[in-house]
C-alpha cells in the first residue's frame, strides 16, 4: 500500500498509509484463492467472512462487501488499521507460506473507507422496540460493539463515558497518524443515528453507581471500562519533571490535541532527546509522537530482545523507517535529575535472557556490573497498564481476580453481579481492539437472551 515517505511523515500527524485506489484494491483482492476451508477466518477472533468480503471487492460490489463485513465486525475502518493481522488472519493465509499473504487488513480498510466516501449512508433496519433499557459503561471498541448490536435488536442503549469524547483508546490512545479521529467520530455518529444515546462526562462509580442505574430503570449493564491504570517502573526519581506515563502523553497529544498547542490550550512536553520505555504498540505510538513533536533523537529501551516485542510488526517497521533507535536487553534502574528536579538521564543495566517465565517468553536477567548511563531530557513510560479500581471499588458485590480485573464468563461475559456483564481490557487485561469487540459481541448476545428470557 502506498505510504507517506518516512522523512516527510515523521514531522506531521497525517495518516501514514495512504490507502488503495480502486484498481489496486481489486488487484490485491483478485489474489485471494477463495479457499474452501479458509484459514484466515479461523485466525480472526470474530470470524469475519474474509473470502466473502474480498470476493465482493473483486466483483466490484462495494455495498455487498461492507454489508458482509458489518455482519461480523461493526468497526471495519478501525480494525483494518490496527489489528495485528500478521498473527491472525494473514498468518493463516495459504499465500503466507510463500511469504506474501493477501493484505486482508488493507482490503478491510479499503472497503470501509469506500463506504464512508461513497456509501449511501442508508441505515440497516433495527428490530421493533422491546422497551428494555441497557446502560453501557465505557465507549471503547468493546462498549461500542455491545451498543451497536443491542440497538439493532430493538433495545434502548445509553453509553456512559467518563471522558468528554467517546471512543476509548481509539480517541485518547492511538494517534492520528495511525487512526484518524475523524473515523472514530463517524463510527460513533453511525451508532447515534441508529438510536444509541451517548452521554459523556459520566464517571460511573462517582457520578452514578451501577445500583443507581438499575434503580433508575435500566434492565442490564455492560462494563467496558478498559485497562486504564498506568504502570510505572517504581524506581528512584520517577517523579522528576519530564517523565510521563504513555497514557498521559498520548491523552494530551490525541484527546486534547496538544500537538496543536498554542492553538489549543493543553500543553505537552517537547523533549529533544527522548527515551520511551517498553516495546508494545503504546511504546511505538509514544516514540513516533515524540518524533512528530520535534524530537532530535528518540530511543526505545526494552528489557527483552527484538523477537519478544509485542507491537504490531507494521508499526515496528514504521518506527524504524522513521529513525527511532532500539536499545534491547536494557532496563533503567534509576532516573537522574538536575537541581531543579528535571530529568537529565537514566542509569541502566544490560540484561541477558534466561529461562522462560509465566508468559512463555525468556526471562530477562540483569548482568552484574553492566551499568551505564543514558542521557535524555524526556521519558515516556509505556510498560503496560492495569485495572483502574475506580468503578470496581464502588461496586462491592462483583467479583474481581487477584489483579483487580472483573471476573466474567468467557462465553457470555456475565459477571457475578446479577444483570451486569463485562468485557474487553477490564476482563482480559490490556489486549487488542478486536478481542474487546469479540467480547462485546458475545455479551450482547447474552444480554439479549437475558432481556428476552431472564438471567
Amino acid at each position: 500500500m502506498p505510504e507517506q515517505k518516512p522523512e516527510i511523515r515523521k514531522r506531521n500527524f497525517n495518516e501514514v498509509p495512504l490507502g488503495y485506489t480502486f484498481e489496486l484494491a481489486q488487484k490485491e483482492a483478485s489474489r485471494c484463492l477463495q479457499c474452501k476451508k479458509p484459514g484466515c477466518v479461523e485466525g480472526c477472533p470474530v470470524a469475519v467472512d474474509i473470502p466473502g468480503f474480498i470476493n465482493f471487492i473483486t466483483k466490484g460490489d462495494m455495498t455487498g462487501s461492507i454489508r458482509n463485513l458489518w455482519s461480523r465486525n461493526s468497526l471495519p475502518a478501525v480494525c483494518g488499521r490496527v489489528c495485528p493481522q500478521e498473527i491472525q488472519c494473514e498468518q493463516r493465509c495459504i499465500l503466507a507460506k510463500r511469504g506474501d499473504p493477501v493484505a486482508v487488513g488493507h482490503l478491510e480498510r479499503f472497503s470501509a473507507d469506500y463506504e464512508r466516501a461513497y456509501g449511501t449512508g442508508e441505515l440497516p433496519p433495527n428490530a421493533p422496540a422491546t422497551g428494555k433499557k441497557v446502560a453501557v459503561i465505557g465507549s471503547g471498541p468493546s462498549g461500542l460493539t455491545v451498543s451497536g448490536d443491542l440497538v439493532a435488536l430493538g433495545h434502548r442503549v445509553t453509553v456512559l463515558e467518563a471522558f468528554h469524547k467517546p471512543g476509548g483508546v481509539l480517541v485518547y490512545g492511538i494517534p492520528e497518524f495511525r487512526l484518524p479521529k475523524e473515523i472514530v467520530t463517524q463510527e460513533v455518529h453511525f451508532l447515534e443515528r441508529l438510536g444509541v444515546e451517548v452521554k459523556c462526562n459520566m464517571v460511573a462509580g462517582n457520578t452514578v453507581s451501577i445500583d443507581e442505574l438499575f434503580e433508575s430503570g435500566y434492565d442490564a449493564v455492560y462494563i467496558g471500562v478498559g485497562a486504564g491504570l498506568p504502570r510505572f517502573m517504581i524506581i528512584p526519581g520517577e517523579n522528576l519533571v519530564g517523565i510521563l506515563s504513555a497514557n498521559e502523553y498520548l491523552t494530551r497529544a490525541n484527546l486534547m490535541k496538544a500537538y496543536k498547542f498554542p492553538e489549543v490550550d493543553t500543553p505537552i512536553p517537547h523533549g529533544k532527546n527522548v527515551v520511551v520505555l517498553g516495546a508494545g504498540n503504546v511504546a511505538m505510538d509514544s516514540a513516533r509522537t515524540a518524533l512528530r513533536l520535534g524530537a532530535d533523537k528518540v530511543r526505545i529501551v526494552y528489557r527483552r530482545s527484538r523477537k519478544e516485542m509485542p507491537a504490531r510488526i507494521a508499526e515496528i517497521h514504521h518506527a524504524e523507517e522513521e529513525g527511532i533507535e532500539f536499545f534491547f536487553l536494557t532496563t533503567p534502574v534509576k532516573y537522574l535529575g538536575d537541581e531543579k528536579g528535571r530529568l537529565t538521564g537514566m542509569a541502566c543495566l544490560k540484561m541477558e535472557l534466561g529461562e522462560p517465565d509465566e508468559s512463555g517468553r525468556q526471562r530477562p536477567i540483569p548482568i552484574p556490573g553492566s551499568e551505564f548511563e543514558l542521557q535524555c531530557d524526556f521519558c515516556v513510560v509505556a510498560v503496560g497498564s492495569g485495572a483502574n479500581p475506580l468503578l470496581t471499588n464502588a461496586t462491592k458485590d462483583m467479583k474481581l481476580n487477584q489483579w483487580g480485573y472483573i471476573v466474567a464468563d468467557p462465553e457470555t461475559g456475565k459477571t457475578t453481579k446479577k444483570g451486569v456483564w463485562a468485557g474487553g481490557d477490564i476482563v482480559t487485561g490490556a489486549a487488542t481492539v478486536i478481542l474487546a469487540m469479540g467480547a462485546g459481541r458475545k455479551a450482547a448476545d447474552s444480554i439479549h437472551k437475558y432481556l428476552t428470557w431472564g438471567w
Partner: protein
Amino acid sequence: MFKIVRREEMTGGTVILNEIAAPLIARKAKPGQFVILKANEDGERVPLTMADSDPEKGTITVIYMVVGKSTALFKTLAVGDGYQDIIGPLGKPTHLEKVGTVVCVGGGTGIAVLHPITRALKEIGNHVISIIGARTKDLLILENQMRKVSHDLRISTDDGSYGHHGFVTEVLKEILENEDVKQVVAIGPVPMMKFVSKITAEYHIPTFVSLNPIMVDGTGMCGGCRVSIDGKTKFACVDGPEFDGHKVDYDELMRRLQAYCDEETECYEDYCTIRDAG
C-alpha cells in the same frame, strides 16, 4: 453544556465565583471533592475543588483565581453561558470526625475550598477556630462566610492591612500554645501548607492538606497528578486530594507544578502561579 446561574467577582475581579447547574454532580458532591471543567472544544481540563454544592437546586459552586490562559477564558463566561464539559465529583471526600478543637487554616482561594469543610466540621460538633490570610486586605475572600461557620475567626495579612501583621503560621503557633488542638486542616498555596505542617509536626497534631497538582483525567488514568506521600507515589485525583500534611513532599509538588513554566509561558501560567496564589 453546564450553565452558569450565578457569577460574582471578588477582590477587584481577580477571583471569580461561578455557581453552575450540574444536577448529577450536585446530588453526589461531598466536602473536599473536586470537579474538572473545560470551557470549550479546544479548552484545557482544569481541576477545581468545589466551594459548595446544593443538591436541591442542582448546582455546584467553584471559586478560582484568574492566573493564566484557561482561567482568563473562564472569566469571560457570563451568567447564562456555560462550560462545555464538567466531570465529577472526583477524589475522596474529607474524612470528617468529631475530635474536639479543630483549627482550619486557609490562604488565598484555598479559603473557598476550606469553607465547606469548616462548616461540616462545625456541624458534627467540633469547636472550630479558623485562620484566614491573604497578602493584603483587598485580596481576602469569604470573611463573612468563614465567620459564620467558625466559633472563632482570626485574620492575618502579609502587609498588616487587616488583622495580624504577618503570616497565618504565626497566628497558628499562638493558638497551638494556648489551646488543646486535636486536628489542623490547611488549604492554600503550597508553601503555606508546607509551613503549617512543619509547625503542627512539632506539636504532634494530626494535619491534613488538600493538594492541587497538574491533572488531566482526574480518574486515575494518567498519573500526571502523582505526589510523594511518605516516600510512596500516590495519585492525588483518586488517592486524595487530601493527604496527611506531615508526609507530603512539598518541594517535589512545587517543582511538578512548574513543569510547563519554562516553555511558552503565556498558556502555562495557570499552574505556575497557583503556587503563590494568595
